[in-house]
């Protein structure tokens, strides 16, 4: 089966997933959220006004009709305007993407490189003091809550020591990084532990495969076995993990964005939930899921490109 046909098939396969996402998003937030008509009407609301807002927003239609119009919006990629700010939802998304990526991408890269490096060393010295030390350090790092890191780091590095501004944002490229270092540090600290463990496991898995034994039996040196065989093969699961994590960068730093005042997509989403702003909630979840599916496809393609034994179906 050719690659192209596979891709086309996968894209067709994406449609039911999109359908599922629209359904879940719709149900969850319609059942769970507040009532935007009440919110818009404000504290001095009257029944008449609430009713007129409801019909204006289309909330008086049946759930099915509302769902169908949501699907239409998804197909045309036009979610209209935010109910609370009247901005075009897509404009909001594009504006939030930059800050979100400048928070998540560098943090992700730094943490990936460090984790992979440590995992390699650790698995090379498997069972020795270094390896045990790394393992315990990782587990220890992972034993603190995310919230504790945020609270403590902000308190210690920004407040007590004054190394960074506590919160804020500068849209210029030269100005924004000073606000980003602390969130990066937190993000890296939090993700190193699990990163090292997962990569280390993947590498160790490979090092126990039969062909490694054969290579060793042939008299290849450890370093050679490592670089030529183990690393190459371990890349498959590692790449899968890495690619899968990428779409999370867009919406994954909700807490960091809200604690550090970074005007990213995650912050938008939290704000949208606070305001029961359905157009924004819907758009952000659907856009996020589209990214997710694209990367999902990419990961499978990489998987087959590296390991031809896996069939494309």
């Amino acid at each position: 089966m050719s690659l192209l046909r596979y891709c086309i098939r996968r894209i067709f396969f994406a449609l039911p997933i999109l359908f599922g996402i629209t359904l879940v998003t719709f149900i969850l937030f319609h059942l769970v959220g507040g009532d935007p008509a009440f919110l818009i009407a404000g504290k001095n609301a009257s029944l008449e006004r609430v009713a007129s807002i409801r019909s204006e927003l289309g909330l008086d239609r049946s759930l099915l009709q509302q769902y169908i119009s949501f699907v239409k919006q998804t197909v045309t990629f036009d979610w209209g305007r935010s109910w609370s700010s009247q901005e075009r939802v897509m404009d909001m998304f594009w504006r939030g993407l930059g800050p979100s990526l400048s928070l998540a991408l560098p943090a992700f890269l730094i943490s990936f490189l460090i984790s992979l490096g440590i995992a390699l060393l650790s698995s090379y010295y498997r069972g020795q003091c270094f390896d045990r030390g790394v393992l315990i350090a990782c587990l220890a790092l992972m034993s603190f809550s995310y919230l504790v890191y945020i609270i403590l780091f902000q308190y210690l590095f920004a407040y007590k020591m004054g190394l960074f501004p506590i919160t804020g944002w500068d849209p210029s490229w030269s100005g924004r990084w000073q606000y980003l270092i602390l969130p990066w540090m937190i993000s890296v600290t939090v993700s190193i532990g699990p990163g090292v463990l997962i990569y280390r496991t993947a590498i160790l898995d490979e090092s126990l495969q039969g062909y490694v034994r054969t290579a060793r039996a042939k008299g290849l040196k450890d370093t050679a076995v490592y670089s030529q065989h183990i690393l190459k093969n371990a890349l498959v699961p590692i790449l899968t993990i890495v690619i899968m994590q990428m779409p999370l960068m867009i919406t994954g730093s909700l807490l960091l964005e809200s604690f550090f005042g970074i005007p990213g997509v995650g912050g938008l989403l939290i704000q949208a939930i606070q305001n029961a702003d359905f157009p924004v909630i819907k758009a952000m979840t659907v856009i996020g899921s589209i990214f997710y599916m694209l990367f999902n496809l990419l990961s499978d393609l990489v998987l087959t490109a590296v390991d031809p034994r896996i069939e494309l179906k």
Partner: protein
Amino acid sequence: MKVLGILVVIMVSLVSCTKKSQVNDDTIYGVIDANIKGLDPIQAADNYMIKAVSQIYEGLYHYHYLKRPLQLEPQLAESLPTISPDGLTYTIKIKKGVYFQDHEAFPARKGRELTAHDFIYSWKRLADASHKATGWWVFDGRIQGLNEWRQELSQGKVNYDSPISGLTAKDKYTLEIKLTKAFPLFEIMLALPPTFAVAREVVEKTGNEFLNHPVGTGPFLLKEWIRNSKIVLEANPNYRTELYPNEGEDVDRELSRLEDAGKKLPLAKKVVIQIMPERQPMWLSFARGELDHAIIPKDNYSQVFNGKTLREDIRKKGIQILNQPRPDVTFIGINMEHPILGKNKYLRQAMAMAINNQISIDTFYNGRGIPAQSPLPPGFRGYKKSYKKPYDFDLQRAQSYMIKAGFPDGKGLPTFRFELTNASSWSRQMGEFLQQQWAQIGIKIKLIPNNWPQFDKKLKSRQAEIFFMAWTADYPDSENFLQLFFSKNISPGPNNFNFVNRDYDQMYEKMSLLSPSPERLALIRKMVQLVNEEVPAIFLLHRVFRLPYQGWLRNYKEYPGINDFYQYLRIDLERKSKLKPKL
């Protein structure tokens, strides 16, 4: 690991380089503790939006910056309105030579002069149902022909150029307003943000984007707005000559708030309003001198205070405190539609008597607050210092009322749901406190945290059983508190207790037509007594905020209702260069 270490060191040194330059900065760094939805006056419903909008836009009236209680004075109007003897016709002269800030919508590119027609347009815009303006209640049913115009506009029968009988421009600078019925508080309404003047050209040019492109007549113009992050304002170069007030209270003289008397406003060239919904970052920024003032809305004074006195370390840094008695009341609301709670007056009275208000004030407000005896805060007409509410803390009496109510020790009562306004630890702890208090008389509650939309939905759809909230006056008159119990205002209106009482309604309707008079005062007192007897709400306290500000910030006297205060503020650079390094 090493690489990361080096990287961090480099970055840190860069950051510390960039920071030194800030000492010579006379920009004012303010803060708003919630995200701003948009900068359109007609949508300004919450305090945050009102604060942002009021720096750029202006209305006919506003309040004197220093005098308390609040005193209405002309802003865009030339003087207070001339009112016809029947109280129905208001004639208002508008200042000449007031210009809108420039915008590409204006042909000559230097703004345009404000006229009476701008107010008529702005108020029609407020009435336009398609805008779903949150501020519509301000005029709803009050101006002749406006409600009809609203109705017909939505049916497409009229447009913005159609005349309205109650709103006419006698000439370029004279506005005449006819009311449907006498409303003695009408001029107060004209100080509220929804009535602020906007320019038709700009609205039409920017369309749906209007709320991102505010163009007003005010002291500041919007330079930059990064949503969820900050609002940057710059002094309006074409601002008319308005001067810093030369009168104030005694305390203003003591705190040298009158030194700038007679200076041209705004005093500052630039204002940066940081948007910080999270308490911790806000406080940390303030403590490091990155903010000139801070808000601690949940009355979490303990970061600044050691008991009731300022903490030593804070005092040394030159940080000052502004005492701000709030025109508000916090209360526990009871849904009168609830089959048990609403029917059993003794039960509600017992609930009121089980709460030791003093402990709650000490624990949650650090002792700063005035125990509420009624909905009316001090300074409001009808407030009387000697008046005590009939059902105050008295545990034994509460227990005996539980027997009267038919639920001795709470036997036979279900567990009530208690709705918390938000999920903060403060409101959770407050809930736990009430849980303990009511447990003493056998009443069990289950605490339910909400976010604001959920809470709002439960309240307005009458699902909330018992809830905790605060009401802050929209305008300085007792009517604003008394309307909370008027039956026409039941949910989704502000009467979230769904309290319906015919005697009360009659008194309320009578009162709202009266100008301040002994008769009105007597009515207000009777209404207060009735509410206190029926206990649809258990009034807890009137808050006193203690707002910290930096020693170098001059003239700071923020107060609810005075929203355009940034124009009066100034940075004392000499003090800043001395104090800032200490932080």
